[in-house]
């Protein structure tokens, strides 16, 4: 039997890896980065949302926000468990950083990460009240849906499976946000809500990364990416624009 295929050519041919002992060095580093980015973003997102639960105008809204906090934390845990198989101490990891920490609302950090964690830049901005949180959750929820569809195809099977399980849960969060925004539009000033859209739109858009990523090709070769950042961003932009226009608002 021909057993002399290198892991690199196996991956380039669309092969999948299934446990830490298979994983070549560069792949491992990129996979760990992908996982820490997801975990840090979920933990930071959940922590930011936790603070907003009590700002919910009614009990239904507070239940929805609490559910989102619970499920995002749970989703972080699923991926943290996979990191655990690489030797990461999940308990220590989950507590090693103040996930509620935020920068100023007008901080200009582009797509850069802070030095202490791998959360997407967008999660470094603070929420300005309930309505702002709903808008952020809608825009980011749609972005997560696009990213989950992409990452459900990663070549590390345990992570692909985790993302396939996480995708519908995250999709529901975006639906809750859409319902929430619809309700807010009945009572709140539309200009204020539009201002939140305008604030979050470029920041969420930046979370797709730069259009010219030097790493894109090598990530593709490893099966960790399939679609270019720019294409994912365009898909998100088109889908989210349609949702907003349906609600009588405009994209940022």
């Amino acid at each position, binding site marked *: *039997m*021909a057993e002399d295929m290198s892991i690199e050519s196996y991956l380039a041919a669309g092969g999948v890896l299934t*446990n830490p*002992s298979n994983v070549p*060095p560069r792949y491992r*580093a990129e996979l*760990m980065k992908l996982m820490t980015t997801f975990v840090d973003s979920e933990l930071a997102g959940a922590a930011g949302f936790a603070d907003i639960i009590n700002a919910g105008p009614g009990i239904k809204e507070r239940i929805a926000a609490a559910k989102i906090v619970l499920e995002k934390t749970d989703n972080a845990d699923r991926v943290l468990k996979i990191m655990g*198989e690489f030797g990461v101490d999940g308990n220590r990891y989950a507590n090693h950083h103040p996930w509620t920490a935020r920068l100023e609302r007008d901080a200009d950090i582009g797509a850069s990460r802070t030095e202490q964690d791998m959360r997407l830049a967008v999660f470094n901005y603070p929420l300005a009240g309930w309505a702002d949180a709903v808008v952020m959750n809608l825009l980011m929820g749609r972005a997560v849906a696009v990213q989950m569809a992409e990452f459900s195809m990663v070549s590390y099977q345990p992570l692909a499976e985790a993302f396939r399980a996480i995708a519908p849960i995250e999709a529901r969060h975006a639906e809750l946000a859409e319902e929430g925004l619809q309700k807010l539009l009945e009572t709140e000033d539309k200009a204020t809500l539009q201002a939140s859209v305008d604030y979050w739109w470029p920041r969420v858009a930046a979370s797709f990364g730069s259009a010219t990523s030097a790493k894109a090709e090598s990530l593709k070769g490893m099966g960790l990416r399939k679609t270019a950042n720019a294409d994912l961003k365009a898909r998100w932009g088109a889908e989210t624009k349609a949702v907003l226009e349906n609600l009588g608002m405009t994209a940022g």
Partner: protein
Amino acid sequence: MARFHDLEVTDIQKTIRDAVVVTLKPVNGAAEAFDFTQGQYLTFRQDFDGDELRRSYSICAGKDDGILQVGIKRVDGGTFSTWANEDLKIGDTVQAMPPMGGFFTALDAGNEKNYLGFAGGSGITPVLSILKTTLAAEPNSTFTLVYANKGVNTIMFREELEDLKNTYMGRFNVIHILETDAQEIDLFTGLVTEDKCAQLFATGWIDIGSVDTAFICGPEPMMLGIAAALRTGGLTDAQIKFELFASSQPGRAKRKAVSKNAASGANQASATITLDGSTQAIEMPKDTTILDAALDNKMDAPFACKAGVCSTCRCRVLEGEVEMVSNHALEDYEVEKGYVLSCQSYPVTDNVVVDFDQ
């Protein structure tokens, strides 16, 4: 973080000339930690002349067998597998982490599913665990195994599979594909390639349209070919489960060539290492990594790959200078701040102060 536990070797059976089935019993109350799911694997560690090797092997026992068993086939030049096949004895104690891996689907007694398994050589171990457990747990499900081997005498668990065919008459079927030994049916000779699978589907040996889930465990080219055929046959990625154990496992830190005799005087360094809130001052040779020095001094320093890639062993250099020979995990800004991978870092100055807690 997963920890290593002691396991007693209670039985060793040769299944073919160069493969053993090792039965293990957790000791010191660790039995609960080893309550596995079918298809999972154990990661062992063993010291060879001062070098720790870690190797993963799939559990081959079914859930209902009530025992913990792994199959270990000897790989040419494989230190661990040769040791397991030639030196391991009943009564020995080995160390392993609790079962890991997701090479399984949830079972339900009410399921009426058709499972298809592909195994190449020793790739049979997790598939055997899955099929035994599934056939016992789901009385209305079927399992077809396509099992690739070089020849008749290299088929692991051949008799056990025959017994299972009799026990689960009509629900369990095995198709042996042999690379070199001719069989009555030409289709069953050769390699399990994409073409071979397509022929098995086209000739009715396998009803691909009725398959709910497929499991594949074997070498890389075989996995690619089978997966391609399954996708062509209409299965989605979510219906195809893979398990791959490549023989080329990640490399190890290369030590700088320094004579053992020179490990004194100019070659000695003093290291102050902080870990989990406590600080220890040690003397260490400069041809030893910070991580190994910490481990040698009974400090429970975190590490996983020892290859400079996972960043689990990251620590920060507060004083002195170290040389990091390989770095695949830390970003430039982290290095600028003094972070190093301790498994790749050797002292350069006579004094170094490092902190694992920062």
